[in-house]
């Protein structure tokens, strides 16, 4: 919009940035991914270690772990999902507000892992959509952080606002033009 005159005030110089709405939304979303800790087995121990001071998941804005799905953005499925637990996991996922993401942490959550058995769901992706799979049994905290960063990368490329609000986007474009 360089050809259009824009109001300029030297007092607020440095406090105003121009950007795309998508970029702003994505920047906000990816830097405050509040996790839903779905700790089901030993991966949960590594999840706790990731949250603690040595690895400090707060560096990525993902330290707000509350055991309520209503304020969560990303569900970290950490551990073996048994069939007895499977529908409960799905139910909690359904209670999370959009936009929502899922990280399948470790071999069990990704594929059932070593539990080829009557009691274990062979991967949480059979029930809910998964964004990032993390290998390992259990994965080290660094691997979980790498997975979180992968998810941040994914979010930063999303056309979330334009795709979700086509009418409003069109109107905004018209107003600016």
């Amino acid at each position, binding site marked *: 919009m360089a050809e259009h005159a824009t109001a300029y005030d030297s007092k607020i110089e440095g406090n105003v940035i121009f950007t795309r709405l998508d970029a702003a939304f994505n920047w906000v979303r990816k830097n405050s991914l509040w996790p839903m800790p779905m700790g089901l087995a030993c991966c949960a121990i590594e999840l706790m270690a990731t949250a603690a001071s040595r690895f400090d998941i707060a560096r990525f804005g993902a330290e707000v772990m509350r055991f309520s799905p209503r304020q969560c953005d990303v569900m970290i499925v950490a551990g073996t999902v048994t*069939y*007895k637990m*499977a*529908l409960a996991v799905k139910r909690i996922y359904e209670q999370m507000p959009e936009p929502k993401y899922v990280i399948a942490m470790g071999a069990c959550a990704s594929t*059932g892992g*070593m539990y*080829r*058995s*009557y*009691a*274990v*769901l*062979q991967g949480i992706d*059979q029930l809910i959509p998964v964004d990032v799979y993390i290998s390992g049994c259990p994965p080290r905290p660094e691997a979980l952080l790498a997975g979180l960063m992968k998810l941040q990368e994914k979010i930063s490329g999303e056309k979330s606002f334009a795709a979700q609000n086509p009418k409003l986007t069109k109107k905004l474009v018209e107003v600016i033009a």
Partner: protein
Amino acid sequence: MTGQELFDSLGKLFGQKLQDKTEFRGETTYTILPSDLREVAKFCRHDLSFDYLIDITSIDNFDEDPRFEIVYELYSMTLAVHLRLKLKISEDEQVDTISDIWPTANWHEREIYDMMGIKFKGHPDLRRILMWDGYPFFPLRKEFPLEGLPSEMPDVAFTKAASLEGGPFVTKPSTATTKDREPRARPPDL
């Protein structure tokens, strides 16, 4: 009373009823008839000071009659003595509960019912304990396949057969390195 005297008194009282006695590396195992279980259990608990029921397990001897075997592991806290009781029952028989003699037997018997489908007569609350109510199979029976069977209970739980992808994934007994022993897909030799 020493451990030996303990076993002797058991033998004296139930001489006819004890079908078999095995001693192996200091472990004493008696085989009894299912009908004598409660009488023997009560005597062990109240007169022989076996105050701790460590575990109850069950064995499926598929293709044999009687099919199932139940093993009771008893321990005396006062004398530090172990005693193992075994009994055999066929598929359509029920075993007497001992959950009123050792309360801990309550959950052990529920687990055996859940996994093997053996019913316990007189049990106060014989429900499944690990799988959900309404699950149609008994997973630790020999005829139950390793990969599981599909089942469906709407809004409660479902199961699917797990893909074995060339499995079963089993260890190889040997003294070789971990790489040789570790569980991996070992398709039957062609």
